[in-house]
């Protein structure tokens, strides 16, 4: 399990316990956390699961793959150095405490 905190664009924070193996995108959808859409079902095709990962955690994520890197350029909100796709961040115990921020808009 890992405790993941989602911070909405307006600053509202929601913390949820997620089982290892799920993704940041599914964790948000399954817990009713707004701000992540996941239109393509988690296949790195739509960029509606864009999140900004807190710097502290950025280096601990699996390296970004080409499909994710390419698609992030097409996200609706600006891409930043810490932009990732929520569907490509897989939760593990090592990510206990992860903090992600949602962008202003996903669509």
């Amino acid at each position, binding site marked *: 399990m890992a405790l993941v905190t989602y911070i909405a664009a307006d600053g509202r924070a929601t913390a949820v316990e997620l089982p290892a193996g799920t993704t940041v995108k599914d964790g948000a959808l399954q817990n*009713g956390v707004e701000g992540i859409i996941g239109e393509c079902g988690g296949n790195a095709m739509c960029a509606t699961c864009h999140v900004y990962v807190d710097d502290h955690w950025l280096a601990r994520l699996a390296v970004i793959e080409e499909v994710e890197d390419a698609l992030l350029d097409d996200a609706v909100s600006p891409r930043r150095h810490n932009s990732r796709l929520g569907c490509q961040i897989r939760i593990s115990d090592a990510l206990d405490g992860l903090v992600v921020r949602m962008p202003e808009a996903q669509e």
Partner: protein
Amino acid sequence: MVIIGAGHAGVQAAASLRQQGYEAAVTIVSDEQRLPYHRPPLSKELLSGGDPLALRPESFYADQQVTLLRGTRAQAIDRGAAAVVLHDGTRLPYDQLILATGSRPRRLALPGVELSGVQLLRVLDDGLALREQLRSGSRLTVIGGGFIGLEVAAAAVSAGLEVTVVEALTRVLARVCSRPTAAHIEAVHRAWGVDLRLGAGVARLLGDSAGRVCAVELSSGERIDSDTVLIGVGAQANAELAAAAGLELDGGVVVDATLRTADPRIWAIGDCASFPLGAAATRRRLESVQNATDHARSVAASIVAEPQPYTALPWFWSYQNDCRLQIAGLIDGHDRTELIGDPSAGSFSVHCYAGQTLLGVESVNAPREHVAARRLLSGEGA
């Protein structure tokens, strides 16, 4: 506000209406019992054991004050009284009505289609039934070399089944992809061990004494032993409601550039809508998640603010095992293709032109090309 259909289009319409500040009541009428779910995984992840994926969490509907009537069929539209008549006779008055009724698989008028083990694939229960059949049988025959058929073939061959795909035309994906892309998809399927029968007609399906399908008989007389048969030969719009209400049809529910029917209170979006597209404004119907959700966003904006034309660039994805295909734009009517990259390396793009005009770009395992093409085609800088 009443929305008929709780697929990708209907649910997104409700979400976008709320997001854009629509405050009046929103009711979605859904003839499905399930919490609205993603359809694309039915021919992909679900078959490899994945869980069904809800479009929105159950809490979304209450939080957003969207009434979702599940297991409820809209029976008729009484335009005079501005009300939707439900299957139990209840009348739902509307101020604005969005038709998001989607499409359904075309049936084949073949002897034997009623046998058990013969599947169409549209709703979650079809997907679950197909998954069960793929687990218990060892030979799958797919009729139709379109996206859905090929996706199922890919999932099944990976699961160790013997898979045959029978396609009447001489290549797969004939309606939707350029020749080079279709040729690549054919090659990867053959490499996975799928037996592709192109230019082959089906005469009938044969059953055993228990009423279960056991073989597909081709027009040539050849029999392909099969435990399961999937029919994937295209889809048709669910447009009967609109037709019965006197709205015009043209392969789908006819709408103008703002996705509105001739009745100013009724809109149609997603798979069921036949809408004008592109410079030539030729009317057509598209079947993709992007089309459904972008239609929904556009209609919500038209209802909340001013009617506005729908202009989003069409794009589409499919994946078959490790082969990810992305298409930007619409390639039909192209007379020339340019190949970028190397299909034998498994990563390339095909640029499809009519004369000098780039119509669309297909990318296989080339996500950067796809994103660049989306930008280029939507005019966001070259």
